[in-house]
């Protein structure tokens, strides 16, 4: 049954559609438009793109971004593969603990981890000092692009881990047993059955890593790497101004590359949803390891966990340390950095304010959109879903540039302040950026509710509003909460859109403040303290949303992007 289209429904549809058009479609279109317009004559042109490809620095940046994204996928895979395979395939203690530890890097903004990594793995960092003393050589972990690759892959490898673990767990035991029954075992079995069946999960995770790394702005900026695409776009806009077309050209290239990566992943995954045919579920049979195998497996796992948790260790040391330079560890420890940030800043307050408003709007839109799309027959309803989800493919930087372009020309009522520099625009940018998470959670929750539950309420004469309030929302509440927390927590560490939109220190949220602090050597301590606070916020949020999701026992592939 589809619901009738009442006036209030049409009005709701219209309001949501306008919101999405004004704050997502128009800014992105304006970025594309500006990229194709000659700034002097105002005519359509592709000269801006030709200029881009004539500039050696830009070409180099483009290839560097590509190279970093690909290498990050490879390095992230080498972290994720052993962790996921060992923990799903073999019986040993701590599988769950290892998997959870493996997710921790996600709860730290990658640019925060980058600073800590520099202290631990840089030329004069802890590890290289040790290496130099005992072995007589240094490894350039953090030199140039290496540093970006290292920081990004540590941060984003959990996307591969999560998806791979889920798809390995989805492989029915009998898939493996029937192959054994027909004479296959060991590597042959892995290559012919396990590997191809876990491929969809891997591709989903790997494409996400590629996309995120390609768009990331904060990490290269903090590591002083400017010859990549996102930093170039940012520097161009912030140094030359919002009328220079080159920044827009780069934003267009970012958007197009993101969309292509998503599209290629989608093609690769077409017709490969294997979960339907595997009725039993329950994952692979877990084999016992003998003593030597156990030692080797634990060795590999502990080594990987040490590397991927290094940013957290480094950040914590930094936030409590006095001076840490050319030494293994900080010279002394202090609480002053924490004191300083609590006394002098409203960043934490801003973050809570912005992110709770954004997350609240997100779940409100999420519930309404999913309800309109799934339960009504209003014309163009899929359009809402597509547009809202498309926000996933729009790099934060491109959205930020689009906002500047679109809203700078309008002033706030009764003042001369441009709309684009008003703090609420940051909230709206966060709302748009995180809407897909909330919407996905709401969609999942609503599809699980049988329409009969609503129809049986309708039989008693309940109105649509009453049904929504008394039946649908209570049943969706776990999904809604999970959506709220995910949106909130990920908005708290968002940098690439906000960095474009913060015009006044007073309005800055946590992530921007960390970035600003980390620019100077003296600011590192307080910056790290803020970073620790961000990690705690996101960590607590993630923990609770995981608890909520686990209670719903959804075993599907998780796309956390």
């Amino acid at each position, binding site marked *: 049954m589809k619901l009738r289209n009442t006036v209030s429904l049409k009005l709701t549809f219209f309001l949501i559609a306008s919101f999405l058009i004004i704050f997502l479609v128009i800014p992105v279109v304006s970025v594309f438009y500006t990229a194709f317009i000659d700034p002097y004559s105002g005519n359509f042109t592709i000269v801006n793109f030709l200029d881009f490809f004539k500039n050696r620095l830009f070409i180099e940046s483009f290839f560097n971004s590509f190279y970093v994204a690909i290498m990050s996928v490879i390095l992230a895979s080498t972290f994720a593969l052993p962790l996921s395979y060992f923990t799903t395939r073999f019986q040993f203690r701590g599988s769950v603990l290892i998997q959870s530890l493996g997710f921790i890097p996600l709860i730290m903004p990658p640019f925060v981890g980058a600073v800590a990594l520099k202290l631990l793995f840089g030329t004069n960092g802890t590890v290289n000092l040790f290496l130099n003393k005992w072995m007589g050589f240094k490894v350039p972990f953090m030199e140039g692009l290496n540093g970006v690759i290292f920081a990004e892959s540590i941060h984003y490898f959990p996307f591969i881990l999560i998806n791979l673990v889920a798809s390995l767990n989805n492989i*029915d035991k*009998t*898939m493996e*047993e*029937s*192959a*054994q*029954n*027909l*004479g*296959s*075992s060991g590597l*042959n079995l892995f290559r*012919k*059955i396990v590997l*191809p*069946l876990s*491929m969809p999960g891997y591709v989903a995770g790997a494409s996400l890593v590629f996309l995120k790394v390609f768009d990331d702005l904060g990490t290269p900026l903090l590591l002083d790497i400017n010859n990549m695409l996102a930093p170039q776009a940012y520097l161009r806009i912030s140094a030359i101004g919002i009328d220079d077309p080159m920044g827009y050209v780069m934003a267009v290239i970012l958007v197009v590359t993101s969309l292509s990566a998503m599209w290629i992943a989608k093609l690769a995954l077409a*017709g*490969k949803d*294997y979960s*339907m*045919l*595997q*009725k*039993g579920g329950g994952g692979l049979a877990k084999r016992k390891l003998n003593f030597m195998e156990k030692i080797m497996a634990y060795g590999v796992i502990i080594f990987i966990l040490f590397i991927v948790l290094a940013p957290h260790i480094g950040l914590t040391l930094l936030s409590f340390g006095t001076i840490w330079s050319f030494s293994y560890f900080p010279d002394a420890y202090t609480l002053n950095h924490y004191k300083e940030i609590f006394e002098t800043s409203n960043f934490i307050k801003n973050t809570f304010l912005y992110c709770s408003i954004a997350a609240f709007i997100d779940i409100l839109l999420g519930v309404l959109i999913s309800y309109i799309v799934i339960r009504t027959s209003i014309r163009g309803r899929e359009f809402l879903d597509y547009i809202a989800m498309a926000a996933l493919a729009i790099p934060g930087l491109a959205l930020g540039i689009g906002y500047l372009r679109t809203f700078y020309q309008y002033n706030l009522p009764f003042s001369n302040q441009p709309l684009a520099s008003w703090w609420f625009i940051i909230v709206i940018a966060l709302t748009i950026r995180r809407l897909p998470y909330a919407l996905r959670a709401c969609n999942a929750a609503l599809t699980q509710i049988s329409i009969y539950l609503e129809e049986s309420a309708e039989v008693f004469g309940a109105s649509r509003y009453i049904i929504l309030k008394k039946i649908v929302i209570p049943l969706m509440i776990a999904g809604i909460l999970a959506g709220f927390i995910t949106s909130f927590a990920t908005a708290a560490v968002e940098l690439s859109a906000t960095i474009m939109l913060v015009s006044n220190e007073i309005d800055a949220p946590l992530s921007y403040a960390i970035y600003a602090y980390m620019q100077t050597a003296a600011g590192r301590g307080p910056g790290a303290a803020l970073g620790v606070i961000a990690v705690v916020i996101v960590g607590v949020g993630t923990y609770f949303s995981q608890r909520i999701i686990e209670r719903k026992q959804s075993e599907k592939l998780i796309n956390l992007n």
Partner: protein
Amino acid sequence: MYDNSNFQTGVNIKDVDVFYGKNHVIKNINIDIKPGEFFTFLGPSGCGKTTLLRLIAGFESASKGKVIIGENDVTTLPPWKRNIGMVFQNYALWPHMSVFKNVAFGLEQKKIEKIEIFSLVKNSLELVGLEGFENRRPSQLSGGQQQRVALARTLVVKPMILLLDEPLSNLDAKLRIQMRKDILHLQRKLGITTIFVTHDQEEANVMSDRVAVLNNGIVEQLGRPEDLYNNPINLFTANFLGTTNTLEGEVVSNNGKLKFISKENIEINNIKFKTGKCKILLRPQNFYINNNEIKDELVKLKGKIVEKEFLGNILRYTINVSEKKILVDLIHEDNSLIYKIEDEIELSFDINKLRFLES
């Protein structure tokens, strides 16, 4: 194409115990399955039938005892070295491979040449009636077709034994009846020793040469289906294979003749058993209502009808005899007399149809 002699292998399960942790799931089971036999493990869920099947396939290990196939002790062999075919309950077709690839998999493992694989797969798909389906994906097949591909995939490697784990449970009622005929037909044609697991007594009766009734990890009774039905040696078998009425009581000596008295004080004279506590079993179809014949062997009891159910071909009455509820099935035809609830009737049965169990 099939060389039947390859298939004529027996299976001997000797003194087998299986534990899941502290759970004793298979308790000292001995079963000897003859070459070429269609043998069924029948029992409720959790009785150990699937565990026993997986033990033969090599997916479970026995803490004690042996599994012997033909002449070979395979107890410690891994599954991939046993050459035993198994069809899984969910068919377990690999979704990333075409039908052809699925069926060819076992042959490729045996390093058979491509050209030969091609013709063997073709023959095998013909055997199950799926010629021309080579390029389909498992997701494009119906449940019954998936089942046939699973059979073809298993049979194409010429296993010594065919194991079927509840292969019909995922099919709808009509298809189930068709499939069970087809499977039986195939088994007879190939002569392959087949072990079938089910919880459905009708399937077991229709298909099997012999049946082992399993319960709580032990064999309650083993024999031909009709023997199990006619002569159950315990209550479990009697109840699992069809409906039965049970009277508990005692046999006493009365003037040199033996008499049974139930707990409810139902008395049956002139019985042939021994004194002491016992149980009497009687199937619902062995009763008559208001039969006026007078014969020595006919035992008569007074009763009152308390319930009736119309099941189509039969009418099932529940009759109160001295506060004991007895189920009685009468064949229904369009001119049959139908009794009403509360009717007082006379129930009778042939004393030779009674089965006695010691208790």
